[in-house]
């Protein structure tokens, strides 16, 4: 039994990847099953202390028995978008979550992890905008404070600690489109005739002015209203071609992030169980 576990990260084309898997379901070989993300998410119950294996157990046992190779893609196993509001480091709680999830994966003879990473100049604004869609408004400065220089190395290290015997595949988001066929081949054995949904557009980031202007008192509105209003204002500005995609960093800062990201990937590549795409 083998498990391919795609853990995110958020805002690294995870939805696109899941859509591709879903759209090409008819091309799978026998003995391989992709568990639809929505279905998986709906059947997993969480408590304060982790996964509720009591109520999720029957479902997990059921999918385990589906075939020899199982593919699961669920970024919320690593953390949630709202974590960015309360955590100072990327995916701080990931290791605990994965250690919890290991109760499910221990029955598999082989577990292979897939994880995408992205330069912080793009990742931080994207995940911030995603958090704005669902949670009450907070300014970008408030969320990140003095902690901009985040890196992926510790995140990958924590995955490696949680799955010390597994191969960890790290995909650089910037190469996503070009390496996707190779990734599909690695997981499904072949990629002939696969439709990579090249025409599907990713969800756009919030409007820059919406993010900035919302600070004027919207934060005190009730959660649903506050997040909904941000989205509405952003859409309205976009429709009228006012402003641009949320971009909190200047060129110098972006260059700094890119330099760090380059080194970050090199450092990740040095970890024995990691392969970088």
């Amino acid at each position: 039994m083998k498990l391919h576990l795609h853990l995110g990260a958020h805002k690294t084309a995870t939805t696109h990847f899941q859509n591709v898997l879903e759209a090409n379901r008819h091309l799978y070989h026998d003995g391989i099953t992709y568990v639809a993300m929505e279905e998986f998410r709906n059947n997993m119950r969480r408590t304060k202390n982790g996964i509720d294996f009591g109520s999720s157990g029957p479902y997990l046992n059921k999918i385990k028995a589906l075939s020899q190779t199982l593919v699961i893609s669920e970024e919320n196993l690593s953390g949630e978008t709202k974590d960015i509001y309360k955590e100072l480091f990327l995916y701080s709680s990931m290791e605990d979550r994965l250690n919890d999830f290991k109760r499910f994966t221990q029955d598999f003879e082989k577990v292979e992890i897939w994880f995408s990473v992205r330069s912080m100049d793009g990742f931080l604004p994207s995940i911030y905008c995603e958090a704005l869609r669902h949670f009450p408004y907070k300014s970008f400065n408030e969320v990140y404070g003095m902690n901009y220089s985040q890196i992926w190395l510790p995140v990958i290290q924590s995955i490696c600690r949680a799955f010390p015997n597994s191969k960890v595949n790290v995909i650089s988001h910037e190469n996503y489109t070009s390496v996707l066929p190779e990734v599909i081949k690695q997981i499904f054995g072949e990629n002939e005739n696969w439709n990579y949904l090249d025409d599907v557009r990713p969800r756009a980031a919030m409007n820059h002015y919406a993010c900035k202007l919302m600070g004027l008192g919207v934060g005190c509105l009730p959660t649903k209203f506050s997040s909904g209003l941000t989205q509405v204002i952003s859409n309205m500005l976009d429709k009228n071609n006012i402003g641009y995609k949320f971009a909190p960093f200047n060129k110098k800062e972006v260059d700094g992030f890119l330099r760090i990201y380059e080194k970050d990937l090199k450092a990740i590549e040095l970890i024995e169980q990691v392969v970088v795409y």
Partner: protein
Amino acid sequence: MDTIKVSVVIPVYNTQEYLKQCLDSVLSQTLESLEVIVVNDCTPDGSAVIIDEYAAKDKRVICVNHDVNKGLPASRNSGVLIAQGKYVIHLDSDDFWVDVGMLEILYRTAEVDGCDILRFNGSDYTNGKLTQPILKAENIVNGTFEGNEQFWEYRSVFLYFFRKCFLDEFALTFFPEISLGEDAIFLSSALSRAKKISSLPHVFYAYRVDNQSLMRKPWSVTNYIEEEKAARIVSANIQNFKAAYIKYWAFRLNHYWSTRLMHRAFRDLTPDEIRSHLNYVSEVSSEMDVKALRDSQCLNEIGHNVLIFLLEKDVSSLESYLNKLANDSNNDISANFPRRLYYAIKWRARCLPLLALKKLKFVGGRIRKKIGLRRALAGFLMEEKRFMNMENNSEYNFTLSREGKSQGVTAMLRVKNEEKNIVACLESIIEVFDEIAVIDNGSTDSTVELVVDFKNNHPLGQRVSLYSYPFSVARCGADHQATSADSLHSLAYYYNWCVSKCRYSTICKWDADMLLSSKGKNRERFKRYILGIVRSRRMFTGSFSIQTVYIDKLGDFFVSQDEINQEVRFFPNHPAIFFVKAEWWEKLQVMFPVSNRRLAAPVVYEIKDVEQDEFSHWSSDTFVGERKVREFRNYMHVKKSMHLKDAENFVRINRL
């Protein structure tokens, strides 16, 4: 047969009433590998029956019978003579031990320290209660008699634990001819010869003060002369140890002999006997090192007067002076009203509810904080502080200044030959601090190369700055004491130089053997704590708990449960806050009141690897103070692989 770890020697004479309690306290010890040598000094009461009963019940009890009553010193010698244990301890048969784990602790500590003598504490026992500790609580590892005269404070042999081979090496026995002060003679001889003496603060011994021992019965003139002879032997034994010698004689002249013993003598002896005793004392007083005593300034008025009378051999004046002192002490309380009043007021003041004082202090602090004067005061006090070294090396003169500091935290990391730890340390903290200033102090291994490599290759490597301080720095302890504070070689100067290299508004003193926990929750907690300090408008120092973790010879990690140290490590980068020379090492001097923020959760680990010399920055083997002593003992515990048997204190962990 297993080696016997401890031999307990109990001389018995007329203590039938207390003997059972005494023997029970020994046989109930958790350390089972022991022998109990009970010496029956021809006791006329029913003690012999009790001894036989215990010997029949427990094989570890060995009975030695004297045909005639030989006295306490000879009884102790008889016991030690047949002792086979690695260590020897004496216990008086009317006293007992209060802790069943006592021998276990003493044995373990003595093994860890490798000391010849280990002293512990006891307490007076009266009316079924422990009343007051005999000694001040103290904790010393591997001290020597020279410079640690506190070992000499209470001269009773039952508070000492001896390595048997040490006693054999110097053939240390009790003087059988002298039954008064035999402890002091023995101890003066033992302490002056011991290479390593340690102490523990634990109260283990119950000293019964309400029975009729020889010390509490009336003495004959022979007893007084015998006591004086014992004092002379003690004096000869310790005369090369000036501090102990002076302390001993000052104590006798100021108090013990001149008031306490002579007070008794005027009650017990006839005038002729007193005169003969005083004649004897004045005859032998010329043996004293009078100059050393006078120079020491340790003599009080009584001691000084007595010494003059003795040297002048003016026995009649001495007698009348001592007689007056004895009478004064009888009438003292009613005669000296102002003194009584003074003590009464002092006592009352002590009894003021501490809670109220604390509350007052707390409220005062709150008010001061509200007014917010501290930062203004700091600014007013100092704009910049200039440091100039006594060696006149202008390149290493520097200035601590308030200007040009960005908001953030610099980790100040002083390193010397840390190739084993440095990379793990940097990796664990690089995300948390805005800058890591690594100051190398002449490493001869690959520490510097590793730091450079880290700086170039780690994604956040640009946060690391590397500096070199090329002067040898005094090690803690004696070296440090002998080095001037403004020398390039002084610890304080070195630390201040390191501070001058830090670019951010707050500094965290970090060590290369410290690791921040890798657990996400702990890292979050620590970062939040840092942000709390840095972002506040007020100035704070910050202290956090550091859990010591030992790596044993097999490379396994062990957490030492009793070793979590809370220490001030964060401080503002401000010229009014700098390091100064303290007694054993450097200390942080803050020129204005600053509140401290504390992080109680132990999220930082200090790694101690037994394969490395963790005490190389110390210039002596003697350690004083609770924390350092505990550190040393735990370290040696693991080094000698004794931690595997101590599951209570050392808990194995898989990762930090």
